[in-house]
């Protein structure tokens, strides 16, 4: 059968970095084809080359039999290629129909709202989606917004749809719904390229092309492979996917929240009557789509924000109104959601970032001066122990990869803390090897008696690592379960507020 898309020896360079190295593969009509690879493997770059956003340095792309030379996505869209990115490009105060019409090539001066509305309603019906085209984007859930992005492509009669990490922001139910839609699309003859690093999704595809460090490793038929085998292809070596969690007796209560409420200018329920307890030797997982109060919860625990009502106790001491410096002194570590924005000083060295928070401690000072040799010794130790890849401890951290920058935060927080660890999506954007490493460290601290709260969007991680799972939705605790007894469907429903 003639392939819909054929990529031959595509090479794309950025300066001296070879993002795509002579990659060849093809897409058949009506298949779901996964691009699997770690961060930095070249999946997004490859997709952007197909979509016309980048122009390849070498190689050819054939779409529907014709050789293509797209100068911009506009050309790709005209040919019938659509793409949905991780960060949506919708205009929130505008309606669905307005978002679809905007930027459509060849739109007449007097926009044809009636015609567009008809076509949109038909598409929604076809795919079993209940959506009024006049709804404003900011009234839609994330899952619905994503559907609007897909609608944009379908409206323009896309034959090939590229999705970049589509389920990163969806609940399990929404993911299921998405894949139902994708299957219907393929039945209608539309091909789908799915960029993902989530093995659960990969297993739902027809074929997988595995990329590693810019090169294509192999293209395989999904059902002939196991998750472990695919991970091995992706990473290049044996990787243990499931870390072992020890059975430990529950320790004393360490961190306790009682009726914590927080509001801000726009939202009266940023945190809504939050109460739960974390014990020593325990990891609590917080499940929920990002933006439901998880980050603000940590800000209260760290002391950056004070709750409007309610109390927080650390080891039976009331820390509700305590400032971050004092809370840190009491042994609380925090791995923030956004490593550069909230956890690192970009132009400072590795060593200087490792002492952030302890720069006034006597162990690093000689009188009023910083003791550079003591700092260097400590930094070298951290770098070795946590295998932080850096030319030197004096290197600026913005020259390091995301994984290594994260390791700096990890090393620092694990060294500075002694009782509690607050980890907010600590493995986001990291390679499988580093993820494995972070998980091992979390479990190690759990055995040492830490009380740990882990916020994560990867339900698989929560089920593997935690003793209890708390679900948050719109600032409220929707459920508090023992992990062994928890069911993924139930959690998924609670994440969506049901």
């Amino acid at each position: 059968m003639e392939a819909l898309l054929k990529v031959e020896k595509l090479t794309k360079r950025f300066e001296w970095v070879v993002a795509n190295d002579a990659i060849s593969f093809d897409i058949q009509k009506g298949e779901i084809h996964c691009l699997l690879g770690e961060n930095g493997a070249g999946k997004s770059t490859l997709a952007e080359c197909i979509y016309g956003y980048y122009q390849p340095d070498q190689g050819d792309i054939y779409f529907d039999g014709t050789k293509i030379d797209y100068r911009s996505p506009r050309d790709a869209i005209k040919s019938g290629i659509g793409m949905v990115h991780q960060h949506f490009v919708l205009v929130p105060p505008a309606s669905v129909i307005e978002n679809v019409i905007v930027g459509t090539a060849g739109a007449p001066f007097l926009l044809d709202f009636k015609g567009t509305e008809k076509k949109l309603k038909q598409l929604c019906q076809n795919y079993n989606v209940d959506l009024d085209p006049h709804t404003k984007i900011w009234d839609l859930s994330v899952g619905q917004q994503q559907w609007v992005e897909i609608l944009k492509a379908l409206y323009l009669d896309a034959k090939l749809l590229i999705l970049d990490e589509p389920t990163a922001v969806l609940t399990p139910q929404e993911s299921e719904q998405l894949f139902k839609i994708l299957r219907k699309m393929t039945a209608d003859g539309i091909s789908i390229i799915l960029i993902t690093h989530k093995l659960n999704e990969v297993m739902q595809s027809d074929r997988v092309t595995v990329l590693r460090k810019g090169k294509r490793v192999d293209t395989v038929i999904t059902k002939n492979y196991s998750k472990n085998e695919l991970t091995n292809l992706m990473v290049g070596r044996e990787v243990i996917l499931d870390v072992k969690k020890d059975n430990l007796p529950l320790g004393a209560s360490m961190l306790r929240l009682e009726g914590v409420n927080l509001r801000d200018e726009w939202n009266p329920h940023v945190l809504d009557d939050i109460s739960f307890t974390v014990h020593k030797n325990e990891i609590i997982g917080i499940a929920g789509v990002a933006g439901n109060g998880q980050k603000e919860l940590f800000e209260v625990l760290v002391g950056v924000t004070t709750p409007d009502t309610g109390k927080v106790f650390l080891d039976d001491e009331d820390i509700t109104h305590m400032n971050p410096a004092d809370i840190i002194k009491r042994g609380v570590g925090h791995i923030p959601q956004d490593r550069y924005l909230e956890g690192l000083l970009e132009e400072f060295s590795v060593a200087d970032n490792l002492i952030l928070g302890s720069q006034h401690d006597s162990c690093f000072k000689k009188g009023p001066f910083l003791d550079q040799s003591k700092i260097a010794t400590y930094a070298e130790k951290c770098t070795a122990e946590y295998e932080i890849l850096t030319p030197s401890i004096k290197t600026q951290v913005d020259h390091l990869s995301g994984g290594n920058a994260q390791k700096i935060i990890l090393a620092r927080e694990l060294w500075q803390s002694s009782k509690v660890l607050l980890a907010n999506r600590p493995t986001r954007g990291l390679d499988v090897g580093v993820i494995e490493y972070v998980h091992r460290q979390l479990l190690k601290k759990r055995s040492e008696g830490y009380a740990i709260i882990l916020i994560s969007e990867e339900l698989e991680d929560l089920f593997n690592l935690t003793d209890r799972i708390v679900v948050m939705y719109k600032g409220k605790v929707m459920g508090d379960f023992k992990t062994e007894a928890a069911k993924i469907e139930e959690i998924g429903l609670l994440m969506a507020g049901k």
Partner: protein
Amino acid sequence: MIKLKFVKRTHNNLRWRILSFFIALVSSLLVSGLLMASVGQNAFEAFWALFEGAFMGQEAIMDTLLRATPLIFTGLATVVAFRARIWSIGQEGQLVMGAIFAYGASVIFSGLPSIVLIPLVIIAGFMGGALLGGFCGWLKYRFKVDEVISTVMLNYIVGYFLTYLLSGPWRSKGSYYLQTEEVVKHALYPVLMEEYQLHIGFLVAIVTTVFMYFLIRKTSLGYDIKALGMNPTAFRYKGANIPKMFVLVMMISGGVAALAGTGELLGVHGRLNMDISLGLGFTGIIVAMIGGLTSIGTFFAAFLFGGLVNGGYVMQVMTGVPLSMVYATQAIILLFFLCSSLLSKYRIKKVTDND
């Protein structure tokens, strides 16, 4: 047609930083020269007179250092604030406060001997600027008042306060000008060498430069200042008391700027008058920027600018080109410097078919 684009460099390149500085210097001299030529002046003669007056001979150097001294202070004041990304434009007012407080102290403690009086007066001057600066820091923390607005407005307020003092309670009896009595002789800064005007204020400036260098580079407070400027969000998560930092940095900055005023009072004018500043605060900002916001860089940039002013006086006398030409040149240097410092951050590349 060849198209060019900018590509960010991966490492801070010292070679290019120095090179870009010289490119700026040369370009601005060229443009200043054109400016002079456009009004019929001989640029070569003028620049030569300026250069001679600024740097050739012992007297020239001494006078250049004299002019550089207040700029070292206002420049360093800018460095400490700007490193924390606190955009203080209050050096002018803090300088005047330094002079006011120094004069007041010299009168109050006039009974004390020099050896005690002079350090006391210096401390008083510092405190004047520190209080003013600290007040702006407090306004930012308490009322979220933008520091650019508060410092600039206080410059005016302090200026009017000075006018009030000089026309009212502190006015020299029988004097036509708005000025105070002369400062008592034993409170004045002694000169370093008999024949020249250069006073110990210059030594105070050297000490301050060294102090700033160590403070910013080597202490934990310096770490905090730089961290505050780099990423206040992450810094706050890791325990920083941001409001306290605002006030502290502004107090240090204000106090250092005030030392410029103290020096002008005790080393140059000998009495408090309306001319105590004339833009030394604002020039300090330019000096600090050209010095790359470092203590040592500021010291040398101040020397350069001091030379421009000193040489400018000579140029005016010898060739008739007005002193304001120097101020124009200072501004032109800054503009070219800002453009050329782009070269140290970015490379220029040809746009190829790949992009």
